[in-house]
């Protein structure tokens, strides 16, 4: 197939495998790549008696998930086609490769495709006698959650959950403990995003939506899907509350709470703008009596080259702070190791 789109790629059909080859070479000290089915595993997998923490999803959100494979975070990531959840084969292979005898925890972002494919994989793994638990992340407050919808999307909270649960697994917490911790984190993390410009999926060749020069989308997800509301562009001082207020109101977060503030770039946003937005968010939280104890700023869960950002807030306690601070050594997050 010809390149029909302005991207640094050869063939849209092989873009994920082609990128994995580069990743494998760039991070040979951290990870191993297997191609059919596509799975990225930490170089020392399986780690005996450690719960295997496995995640995955469509590609195009890098560094999520493969960039978080390594000590103190994920044991394996299953990269699907661009914006397409992985297949059960991939997830099963990941579990098989990383199970060190203590079972596997699957971290699943709440999308119909992801839920169904991971569900099937979990059944297949169970049939092989591997104990598997699944936790679904659904932190996007832009989406209505009810029995009669697909529920909220999993977005920025996924990164925080993978770090924290990965740290617990690394310390030897068992499958029950990891699962409970994951549910706890999923229960107290909330996110919301906006886009200034859309992205183009390689095989689609056209932007996922179009915006006029003075328009932006509020409440976008991470798959180039349009948001819930199209509004005129506004200054950052008014954009940041448009993300933060729905988040604060949802859990809710309030005075006295201690939080981790994650200011995320969607892939095509200058770091300058992210830091600017982060500063505003910190100020707004301080005004509300909420203490920011930890922060993460950068493009960690992206939507190809989309321009925009998301904010994620996680309510912290001492346990979560300690696990957040624990050493981690992956391509995209690294400290203490």
């Amino acid at each position: 197939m010809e390149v029909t789109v302005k991207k640094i790629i050869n063939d849209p059909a092989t873009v994920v495998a082609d990128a994995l080859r580069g990743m494998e070479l760039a991070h040979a000290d951290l990870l191993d790549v297997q191609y059919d089915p596509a799975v990225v595993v930490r170089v020392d997998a399986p780690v005996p008696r450690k719960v295997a923490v496995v995640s995955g999803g469509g590609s195009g959100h890098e560094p999520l998930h493969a960039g978080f494979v390594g000590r103190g975070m994920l044991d394996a990531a299953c990269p699907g086609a661009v914006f397409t959840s992985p297949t059960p084969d991939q997830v099963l292979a990941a579990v098989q490769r990383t199970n060190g005898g203590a079972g596997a925890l699957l971290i699943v972002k709440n999308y119909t495709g992801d839920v169904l494919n991971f569900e099937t994989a979990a059944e297949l793994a169970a049939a092989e006698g591997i104990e598997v638990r699944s936790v679904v992340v659904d932190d996007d407050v832009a989406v209505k959650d009810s029995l009669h919808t697909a529920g909220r999307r999993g977005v920025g909270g996924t990164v925080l959950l993978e770090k924290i649960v990965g740290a617990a697994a690394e310390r030897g917490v068992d499958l029950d403990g990891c699962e409970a911790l994951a549910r706890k984190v999923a229960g107290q993390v909330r996110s919301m995003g906006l886009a200034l410009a859309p992205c183009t999926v390689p095989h689609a060749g056209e932007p996922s939506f179009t915006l006029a020069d003075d328009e932006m989308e509020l409440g976008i997800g991470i798959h180039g899907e349009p948001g819930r509301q199209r509004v005129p562009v506004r200054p950052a001082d008014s954009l940041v509350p448009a993300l933060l207020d729905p988040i604060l109101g949802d859990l809710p977060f309030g005075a006295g709470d201690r939080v981790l503030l994650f200011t995320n770039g969607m892939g095509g946003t200058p770091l300058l703008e992210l830091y600017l937005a982060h500063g505003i968010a910190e100020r707004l939280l301080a005004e509300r009596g909420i203490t920011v104890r930890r922060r993460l700023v950068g493009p960690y869960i992206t939507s190809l080259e989309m321009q925009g950002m998301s904010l994620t807030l996680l309510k912290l306690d001492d346990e979560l702070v300690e696990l957040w601070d624990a050493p981690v050594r992956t391509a995209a997050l690294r400290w203490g190791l």
Partner: protein
Amino acid sequence: MGCTAERVAEALRAVARVVAEHREELVRLDREIGDGDHGENLNRGFTALVSKLDGDVPGTPGAVLKSAATTLISVVGGAAGPLYGTAFLRAATSVGDAAELDAGAVAGALRAALEGVVARGKAAVGDKTMVDALTPAVAAASSVAATGGDVAGVLAAAAEAAEQGAESTVPLVARKGRASYLGERSAGHLDPGARSTALLLRTLAGSAR
């Protein structure tokens, strides 16, 4: 005229051609209210299925359908992979190891497919999904089969009903799948999965003539 394993395989090859032809249309529909991969996903799956059938066509219609199911599940991903995969798996189970399928078996397979999709995806008619195409198709197929129609007649009726069912998704506000994230803004668009279901059934009907 019964439907052999070879005929089923032939029909699935035809589906692969039609999916390839409509790849861009399905991508465009999915870009409007989803994430723009539906055509690409199905095309990847059916291309893989054709390669598999080129190697070896299993001996019974049920085995062909089962092979289609496992290929789609292993290769497609996304929502469509497990949903279409389950549909084919349930259809395969429903036809058992019969050497040929008659009209009743085909209608029964369609019903089993629908039940599988609903079991997995929990969507109801009106949620703006492939269920909106498949549900009327199953009803139409059953009634033709019950009144003595042949396989071609059953599938023609199913295709006709699926097309109408797909069209009926246009005004709907989605309640399942990615389109549901758009809320009211999902109205006014054809659901890509309903469209692909209609295309699939129309192609099967064409192959059965």
